[in-house]
């Protein structure tokens, strides 16, 4: 009985070790002396757009024309009670804008990725727009743009720094 078991075990092991080999492809040598890399030689263009950019780029990213930036908590787009005074001030400034359009720019910290962060910035801009509309500012005079995380005013790796980037800036459309 023991001998039979030994033979069975050895046979099974041998079968398992030898049963699944795969031969390499067998190819005949052929003449392939071709030069076909021409598709790689097409040169691509280079475009320089340093001459123009968005109107807020490089301006320090704070609000201008008398408006005050509105700040948000991490990941949030609701206006906190601490920011209601800023909204009221912005409503007053907008009321004296002589019909000029107001640009509302949504911004985020760097802790988001790709499209989601831009949508979050837009929700913040819309929260400010809706609050100002609720206090009498005509929606047709307000224009929203989200800048996502592209426009930080502070780049140090601290919580207080990141909080400065979670903001909405306002300015008049030139």
């Amino acid at each position, binding site marked *: 009985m023991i001998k039979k078991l030994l033979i069975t075990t050895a046979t099974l092991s041998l079968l398992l070790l030898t049963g699944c080999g795969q031969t390499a*492809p067998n190819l005949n040598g052929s003449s392939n002396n071709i030069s076909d890399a021409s598709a790689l030689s097409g040169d691509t263009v280079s475009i320089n757009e340093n001459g123009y950019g968005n109107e807020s780029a490089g301006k320090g990213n704070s609000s201008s024309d008398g408006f005050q930036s509105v700040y948000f908590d991490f990941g949030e787009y609701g206006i906190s009670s601490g920011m209601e005074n800023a909204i009221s001030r912005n409503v007053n400034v907008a009321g004296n804008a002589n019909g000029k359009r107001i640009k509302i720019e949504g911004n985020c910290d760097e802790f988001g990725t790709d499209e989601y962060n831009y949508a979050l910035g837009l929700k913040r801009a819309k929260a400010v727009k809706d609050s100002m509309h609720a206090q009498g500012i005509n929606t047709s005079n307000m224009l929203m743009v989200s800048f996502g995380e592209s426009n930080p005013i502070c780049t140090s790796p601290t919580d207080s720094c990141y909080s400065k980037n979670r903001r909405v800036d306002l300015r008049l459309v030139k």
Partner: protein
Amino acid sequence: MRYLLLLVLSLNLFAVDASLKIEKDVEQRSRIALEDASPSVNAAFFKILLSDLKISGHFLADSRHHRGDLKSNFIAPALKSKEYVLKYTLTQGSGTKLIIRLFKASDGTVLLKKSYAIPTTSKAPFLAHKAISDINDVLKYPSISWINRYVVFSRYTSPGQSEIILADYTFNYKKVIIRGGLNLFPKWADPQQKSFYYTSYAGVIPTLYRLNIYSGSKQKITSSEGMLVCSDVNANASKILVTMAPEGQADIYEMSSSGGSKRRITTFNGIDVNGKYVDNESRIVFVSNRLGYANIFKKSITGSGVSQVVYHGRNNNAVDAHGSKIIYSSRESQNSFGNNTFNLYLTSSSASGTRPITATGTNQFPHFSTDGSVVQYIKHRGNNSSIGYMNLGSKQSLLFPLGGKKIQSIDW
């Protein structure tokens, strides 16, 4: 004694699956060595060839940098144990010339002779990729033509400024194609990679353009208040998925590639972004915060029902799709600030077969290769950022270091 032998037999039988799998994984790949016959050694080029062989999933490459003679059929005895030997010469002056000869290691039979020439030196990495994909085709392995493709990405250079760059998949070749201004979200517009879409912030509101990378011609597709991103292009390049907010609410729209007609696909009063075609373009998967946090959902292009695809993670804010396969990033730590652990997961549009692809670091921006066999992603670990590739079949992975500038968006 009888019980002991029965136990040994049982253990042997239970071990069958594991040992067979290992054997199969090894033998499916061909053992290959490289022999450099170039006048001067170019270590960087040799590393690119090795990377190509590795990420193909079809080769086990000898990592030693052998020198040899291109014209001779002689195979060094030490290399006879390989299945193939690839001899090559790389010559660079005003241009780049690469000559390759692929030998059967056992008898020195020539399987492939080929030469490549381009008038520049900067694009030499593409010659390596082309040579390896040609060798792969001659040996009748599934195509790896995706290694020949450009990667296009945008990165921030300073507040309110960015640049859009073309690269090969290893990032050894890089060329700035749009410098200055704020230009974001580049997305290939056609399978041949002649044009890409991108969002320009040069005007008062975001505008979507399509740029031909060879002629420089630029076509305005549409513009939108709030935000505007081209998230996906369908297989025949006739339709695009965009996230836009014409009424101040970010939703996903399907649009003709000319911008002529559009259909609103999502209507949620929150955040819906990152739409990707799935299931033969009959549905989309997308990122939404309709449960209070970023997560992955799907819906048909024409219907109204929305269903959840992912049931774990607190922040799943990026997704890509190929066929019915879905890859997404999931935040798995609770830090509000600083480094969080983001891992990539593979699942399907039916939410079945979910499995992790990465285990450490911050892994984001997942993208499938054109055949869905490889995933590209950005990995942050400590102070280092890399572009990573994971072959889903062979489980082989590669990481190439990135510079310090933050990548905004990437497409392959």
